[in-house]
């Protein structure tokens, strides 16, 4: 597709952290398992069941392979939200009478924060670690937070808004040393960065299908066997997935997730290199065309497919309305009644006024160099137009310190 075909009704997709298109090769792999090989993988008595089960076990191996795990340590779930809930609540319920302290971090995905919040209602203590200005946790702060009551540390591998990669290996070592379980939400990390559950001492890891060019509605969870992690299931029933997650497995989705992992593993290195170059081109291109822009989160410890940038003096949602031919996400939450900007950006210490001017730009497998150049052109044009409309830009140009003005907060 050439750049000049992008329109409001056919926008350029730059929101790969929200979801990814299912890779056509993944779709193809799923096709036989809808109507032809439709068996229940848990049916033990006939060929339909066996062929579905075989396909599921191949997929389990493909998922295990991308994180250096054994297939026996993988269970399938509906997605990373379920995996995160199962990891946190399941472990808490199993071990909670002995140890009732959980450590997580303020920039986690809502499903981790809310699962922890729910456990607080059940009497658990939760420590929410702060992050540094670059979005990474402070290992000394983590170390200091661990007590003899600490059961679990849950720290995401890659942040969904700012793409920063947490120091997993160091966190894992610290957890192992203190005999604390380490869970990581790797929804945004799998297939983007190399992961090895043994090397990183990860005890539980959550995977999402639709973030890695697989189908929606499927995810997986890694649960370590040695030393064994035990948990109470959230969903009771026929005892599938070794009793940890009952319910008939959706064979086509499972096959799709497996294929997505296989492709991601095979293509990860080349893809990362390609996207790193696009990330650089986009960031530098925007910097050259637009003064006073600010990157949120660390640039080095970051997946190559993400940029989160504050375009000072231009409100993010207003900006998005001007670039309707680009599908991006805003760090401003002005559409919600709260008017609160992103809690992730606020946690980095990004001031509210700057947080309101942020866009998340997500690059991925189907992004081209022409797309990058097109996005630079469109964003630069619109930011500069809106700055001409912005009283704050005028004031800043006139040398007025915006902080010296007594604003009426509304």
């Amino acid at each position, binding site marked *: 597709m050439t750049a000049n075909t992008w329109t409001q009704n056919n926008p350029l997709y730059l929101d790969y952290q929200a979801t990814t298109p299912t890779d056509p090769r993944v779709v193809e792999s799923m096709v036989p398992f809808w109507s032809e090989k439709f068996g229940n993988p848990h049916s033990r008595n006939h060929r339909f069941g066996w062929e579905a089960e075989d396909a599921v076990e191949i997929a389990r191996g493909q998922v295990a392979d991308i994180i250096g795990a054994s297939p026996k340590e993988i269970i399938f779930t509906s997605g990373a939200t379920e995996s995160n809930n199962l990891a946190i609540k399941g472990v808490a319920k199993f071990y909670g009478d002995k140890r009732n302290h959980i450590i997580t971090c303020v920039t986690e995905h809502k499903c981790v924060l809310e699962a922890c919040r729910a456990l607080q209602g059940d009497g658990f203590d939760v420590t929410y670690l702060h992050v540094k200005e670059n979005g990474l946790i402070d290992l000394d702060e983590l170390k200091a937070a661990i007590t003899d009551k600490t059961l679990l540390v849950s720290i995401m591998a890659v942040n969904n808004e700012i793409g920063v990669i947490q120091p997993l290996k160091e966190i894992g070592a610290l957890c192992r040393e203190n005999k604390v379980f380490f869970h990581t939400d790797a929804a945004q990390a799998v297939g983007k960065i190399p992961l090895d559950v043994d090397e990183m001492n990860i005890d539980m890891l959550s995977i999402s299908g639709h973030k890695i060019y697989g189908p929606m509605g499927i995810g997986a969870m890694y649960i370590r066997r040695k030393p064994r992690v035990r948990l109470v299931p959230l969903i009771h029933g026929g005892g599938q997935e070794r009793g940890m997650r009952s319910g008939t497995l959706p064979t086509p989705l499972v096959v799709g997730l497996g294929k997505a992992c296989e492709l991601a593993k095979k293509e990860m290195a080349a893809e990362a290199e390609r996207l790193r170059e696009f990330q650089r081109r986009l960031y530098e291109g925007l910097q050259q065309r637009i003064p006073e822009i600010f990157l949120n989160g660390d640039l080095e410890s970051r997946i190559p497919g993400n940029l989160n940038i504050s375009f000072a003096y*231009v*409100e993010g949602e207003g900006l998005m309305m001007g670039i309707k031919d680009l599908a991006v996400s805003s760090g401003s939450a002005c559409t919600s009644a709260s*008017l609160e900007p992103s809690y992730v950006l606020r946690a980095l210490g990004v001031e509210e006024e700057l947080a*309101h001017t942020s866009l998340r730009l997500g690059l991925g497998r189907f992004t081209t160099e022409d797309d990058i150049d097109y996005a630079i052109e469109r964003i630069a044009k619109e930011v500069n137009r809106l700055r001409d*409309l912005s009283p*704050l830009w005028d004031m800043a140009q006139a040398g007025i310190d915006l902080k010296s*003005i007594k604003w009426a907060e509304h």
Partner: protein
Amino acid sequence: MAYSKELIDHYENPRNVGSMEDDAGDVGTGLVGAPACGDVMKLQIKVNPEGIIEDAKFKTFGCGSAIASSSLVTEWVKGKTVDEAGEIKNTDIAEELALPPVKIHCSVLAEDAIKAAIDDYKGKTGQTDTDAVGESQDAAE
């Protein structure tokens, strides 16, 4: 969210963008909102000796609805007397632009901007008719 044709037109082709001399005796300036809340409007009116608003200019930092609301009110106040302009209600603005409920605060801010500009003008000309500078009727914020 689907925005109205009117709103998009004001966003894409904003009317009366610009600034007037703050210090001029016949210019009233209203600066409302806060950067931390994601919207700031600056609205200026120029009033002739007969008390008619001859010209209006705005600059807005905010979402599309905030930009459109302020653009619209600059059109509306022109040709009105200062007191007539003070009668413009946020509900009229919201209705004209078909603002969705979460964007009503943008119309409230636009009403506040007019009132602040009128207030400033009256302060400069020694009129202290504070009755025209009522609080916004909508307490949505």
